[in-house]
């Protein structure tokens, strides 16, 4: 299901398209790990997709490659029609700047800067005009309900507020894709629900969201659920049950830990 009209879909390439995407760590050695095994995934503009999986299932690896932070060992990955394998480090950075907003489990705010400057930070790399940066950041903070907290430093805000600052930062350059890796992992269930409500809101405004989580309840917020299992991507909610092995739903499992 997608909100993008059929006509638009025809003229516009999918926002994410992977074919046979594979990632192998330490290839050829005894420690060889196949973190991603020939994943095919297509996400259209405007979709809200959650990728679920237990720790070690390869979901973080998939997110890193979709976010152009990591390079695949094999296969093809296109972001908005651009094959990322053809880009050098500078061009990849440019792609992240223009197309992708990240929301991390640990917020990753700079503790010495107040909320406004944290949100403004990506604008410098986008060479936005100096005069409008503060206004844009203020507007972004207002959009996530933090209009009155612009002068607060991360240490002076709750976890939910910090995560909303980081969402405002992710959206400041107006990227088509929002990649959220366990965005509620460090939050209690109430503030987690607030952040998810914010995602629903962004989704209704046309943002494409890819949400990565180990929690089926959170995954169900999305219109479409993919399940990662041992590096293989399965489409559809029915895989949730198959996935519901004891440790897969263990709420104490370290969320988002790497492969």
């Amino acid at each position, binding site marked *: 299901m997608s909100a993008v009209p059929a006509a638009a879909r025809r003229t516009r390439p999918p926002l994410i398209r992977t074919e046979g995407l594979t990632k192998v760590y330490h290839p050829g050695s005894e420690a060889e790990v196949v973190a991603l095994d020939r994943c095919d995934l297509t996400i259209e503009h405007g979709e809200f997709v959650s990728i679920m999986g237990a720790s070690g299932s390869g979901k973080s690896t998939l997110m890193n490659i979709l976010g152009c932070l990591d390079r695949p060992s094999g296969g093809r990955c296109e972001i908005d029609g651009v094959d990322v394998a053809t880009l050098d480090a500078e061009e990849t950075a440019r792609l992240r700047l223009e197309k992708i907003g990240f929301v991390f489990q640990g917020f990753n705010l700079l503790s010495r800067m107040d909320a406004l400057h944290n949100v403004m930070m990506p604008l410098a*790399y986008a060479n936005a005009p100096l005069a409008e940066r503060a206004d844009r950041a203020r507007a972004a903070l207002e959009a996530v309900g933090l209009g009155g907290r612009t002068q607060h430093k991360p240490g002076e805000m709750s976890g939910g507020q910090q995560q909303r600052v980081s969402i405002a930062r992710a959206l400041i350059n107006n990227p088509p894709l929002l990649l959220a890796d366990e965005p509620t992992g460090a939050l209690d269930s109430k503030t987690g629900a607030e952040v998810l409500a914010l995602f629903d809101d962004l989704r209704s405004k046309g943002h494409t969201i890819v949400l990565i989580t180990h929690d089926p309840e959170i995954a169900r917020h999305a219109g479409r659920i993919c399940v990662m299992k041992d590096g293989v991507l399965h489409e559809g909610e029915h895989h949730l049950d198959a996935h519901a092995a004891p440790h897969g739903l263990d709420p104490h499992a370290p969320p988002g830990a790497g492969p």
Partner: protein
Amino acid sequence: MTPSDILRTSVFALRGNWMRSTLTSLGVIIGIAAVIVMVSVGQGTQAEIDKMVSGLGSNRLDISGGAPNQGGVRGAGGSNATLTDADAKAIREQVPEVQYVAAGNRGNAQLVYAENNWSTSWQGVQPDFFDINGWKLASGDGLVPGDYSSAAKSVVIGETVRRELFADEDALGQSVRIGKVPFKVVGVLAEKGQGGFGQDQDDVVMVPLETARRRLSGANGAPPGSVRQIAVGVTRAEDLPVAQEEIEALLRERHRIQPGGEDDFSVRNISEIVATRTATTRIMSLLLGAVAGISLIVGGIGIMNIMLVSVTERIREIGLRMAVGAGPRDIQRQFLTEAMLISFGGGVIGSLIGIAGAFAVAKFGSLPVALDWHVVALAAGCSVATGLFFGFYPAHKASQLDPIEALRHQG
């Protein structure tokens, strides 16, 4: 990222750690301050030598009796009275490059005026003497042609002698005794101050050469018409070597010295002495510069060290910046700018301290100081170059970090 963005980000990062930034720049501060003080002292010494050269006259030759390299018992050059008035006259007439020639004698005597007395050396001079040595009269007419031809008992005294004998009194027209002979003071020389070798140039007394011979030399057994030295002024400094050769040839001929025979006179070229001193000063300057350069390198290593620590400490920040769209070039420029700001800041502070230090040395030390603004600009430039050179590796390292590794970094 625009340059102003990079600058703003770097200043923000440095301010967050201002204590560390200041301490890191200390190496550069000391290095730059050392460069400026040391080079200023070196150049001041050089300038002093240059002044001395012009004071002595760089286009003069001094001829004295006796061989230049006689060892042992024959004594210092000039003690053998082998030169004569006629030699001086021949040089004037036969060496075209020569502008001034003055033969002279010298000796020691006690001067007495009223209750005051003063021991000094007198010089018997010819008219050109004053021009060769750049003497000017502060008061009086000085020695006039008549004084020379009539061997008048007239004397010109230096400022030190005037002060010692006359204090506040007017010296002109007064009578002083040199030894036992009364002389009339006809001129007081303008003050020259301390010479390049530290001697008091104003402690002098000049009388006509002929007067000196008759009244002051006494019966020292010297042949009539002999002089101890001849000073020669050459019209153009670049003719000095030519004039020297011609004078040497002329005197060998006049003194009938066979080819291969030893000269009974020596010609000294002031610029040779000066050249030796200049070379010494240059070596000193090089050594000082080397010390300063080493301290800059040490300061640069300090910067590199701290920048490496800073990169490691801020590895998550680097990862985050990369995730939101910073390219390797942005990261490299930011850290390079931080390193350059530390070193340039150190350069500016070091320059101020160096300038203050140079003035302090000039005021309280006995060393001559010449502050050259080119050196200050060069030192500031060196500090930036130091930051650039030693900041490059840490900045490059930061730019090559793997974003995922950086984001996952604990600590």
